C-alpha cells in the first residue's frame, strides 16, 4: 500500500525534476532515522535543515494557521527534506518506521504540504483556501485537474476544501497555476465520490 509519499510522483510538483539534486536524493525509505528540527537558525547544525520557527512561520504565512496550533508538536526530518509532526517528544535521532504525521516536503523552492496534513490542520487556515462546489470537489477527490478561472488568490499550493455537514472541510492540496487547479491527492487516497 502506498502512503502519502507518492504525492510528488504525479507530475504536478513544480519542483519535481527541476533540480538535478533531486535525482541524487536517497529514496524515501532508505532512512529510518528521524532528527528533531533545530528551534532556530542559530541552533542549526546540519546544513539546509529547516528550523522549527521556519516551519511554523510557513504555515502561518501561507495559510494563516496560527503558530499556537503547533505548541505541543515537535518537528522531525527523515531523509532529505521530508518533515513530520509528532505530538510528543522523544530522543533525537530516533530510529523508527514512522513518527507522527508527514506534513511537509522542504529543501525545494516551493514547500509542499501533504494531503493528510491539510486534512488535519487545514481547518484552521484562513488564507489560500479554495472552496469548491459539489462537482469541483468530486473532480478533485478523483485526482482530476480542472479549470478554475474564478480563483484570484496566490498561485502555488493551495488548500482545496468544500462544504460538508455544516462547515468548510479541507479535501487536500491543490496546485494552482495558469487558471488551472491540479489535484495532488495521492493515488491511494483517490475516490469516486458523489458531487
Amino acid at each position, binding site marked *: *500500500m*502506498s*502512503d*502519502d509519499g507518492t504525492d510528488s510522483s504525479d507530475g504536478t510538483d513544480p519542483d519535481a525534476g527541476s533540480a538535478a539534486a533531486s535525482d541524487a536524493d536517497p529514496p524515501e525509505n532508505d532512512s529510518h532515522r528521524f532528527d528533531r528540527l533545530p528551534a532556530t537558525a542559530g541552533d542549526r547544525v546540519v546544513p539546509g535543515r529547516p528550523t522549527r520557527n521556519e516551519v511554523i512561520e510557513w504555515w502561518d504565512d501561507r495559510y494563516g494557521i496560527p503558530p499556537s496550533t503547533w505548541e*505541543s*508538536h515537535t518537528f522531525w526530518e527523515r531523509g532529505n527534506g521530508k518533515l513530520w*509532526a*509528532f*505530538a*510528543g*517528544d*522523544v*530522543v*533525537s535521532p*530516533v*530510529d*523508527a*518506521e*514512522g*513518527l*507522527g*504525521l*508527514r506534513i511537509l516536503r522542504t529543501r525545494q523552492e516551493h514547500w509542499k504540504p*501533504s494531503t*493528510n496534513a491539510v*486534512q*488535519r490542520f487545514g481547518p484552521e487556515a484562513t488564507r489560500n483556501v479554495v472552496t469548491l462546489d459539489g462537482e469541483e470537489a468530486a473532480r478533485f*477527490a478523483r485526482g482530476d485537474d480542472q479549470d478554475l478561472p474564478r480563483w484570484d488568490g496566490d498561485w502555488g499550493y493551495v488548500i482545496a476544501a468544500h462544504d*460538508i*455537514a*455544516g*462547515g468548510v*472541510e479541507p*479535501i487536500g492540496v491543490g496546485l494552482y497555476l495558469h487558471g488551472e487547479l491540479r489535484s495532488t491527492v495521492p493515488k*491511494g*487516497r483517490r*475516490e*469516486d*465520490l*458523489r458531487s
Partner: protein
Amino acid sequence: MQPPQRYASLVEDPDAFRAACGRPLPSVVRVNTLKTSVKRAREALDAEGVGYEPTDWHPGVLKLDERGPGTSWPYFHGWLHGQEEVSTLPALALDPQPGEVVWDACAAPGSKATQIAALMDDEGVVIGNDNNLGRLSALRHNAERLGVTNLAVTNQDARNFSLKPFGDRTRDERRIEEFDRALVDAPCSCEGTIRKNPDAFEEWSLSHVEGVAGVQKGILRRAVDATRPGGTVVYATCTFAPEENEAVVDHVLGGDCELREWEPPEGFDTDPGITEWQSETYDSSLELAHRVYPHRNDTGGFFCAKLEVTA
C-alpha cells in the same frame, strides 16, 4: 474436534452460536474523533444517503446498512474507520489517558492503535509495533488518513521488544524506559473471524493453536515486564480457543500482575472467562476476563482480559 463444535460445551445456546458463525458480519465503522464529532460524521452520512444504525452500546460505532465505508465523503476526510464492532473493546478496556506512553505490541493494520490515539486526544505517545514489515505500511497509511500525530511506528519482534531506540538506559531526559499501558492484541487462530473469513474453521488445526499460543505467551510476558508497576496490560484475541486465551493469561500470572475487573459498556453482553478446559485448570481470577460469542451481540468472536502490573 473442530470449531465450532469444539466450543459447544462452553456456550449456553450452542445452536444459536453455530448459526451466528454462519451469518455474514455487518459492516461497521468507528467515528474518528480526532478529525470530527460523532454528530458531524452522522450528518455527513445522512446528507449522502448512507444508511446506518448506531450500536446500542457506543454512539461512535455505527452499523452501515449496506456497502463498505470506502466510497463516502466522511470516509475520505478520515472521519470514519472501518473497524469491526467487537474489536473496539480492547482499547476501551485499556482506557489510555492523554499524555501517557502506551505500547501496542501487534499494531498493524492500526484500528486499535488509532482508537487508542483518539482516546488519548492525540496527546502522549503510542508506540505501534508490528513484526510484519508489509503490514506496517497499512498501519502508517491508516494513522495518517485519520490524522494521528502521537504514533511512533516500530518493526520489532514484540517478544524481545527493545526500548533502546527510544533512549532506554541513557541519561537523555526524553528517554522512554517503560510503558504506562500496553495492549497485546495477539496474532491468533482467528476462529472468531469466521463470519468474515469463511475459511477460518477449515484452516484450523490444533498444532497451529498450540504453536501460536507460545508466541502469545512470549508477547504478553514482554508487555508485563515493560509496563510500570500500577500500569495496565490488556490481552485480546479474536479467537475462542482457551489454549490461546485463558491459558496464555494464566501463564503470566503469579508474582507481578493480576487480573482486574472491567465491564464493557452497558448493552454489550459477554460471558466470563473459563477456569477449566479439557484436562487443564486456570486461576480462578480468569473469570474476570471476557468471552464474546457471535450470537450474543451479532458481532465476531473475541476474548479480552485486563491486567494490572503489581511489581
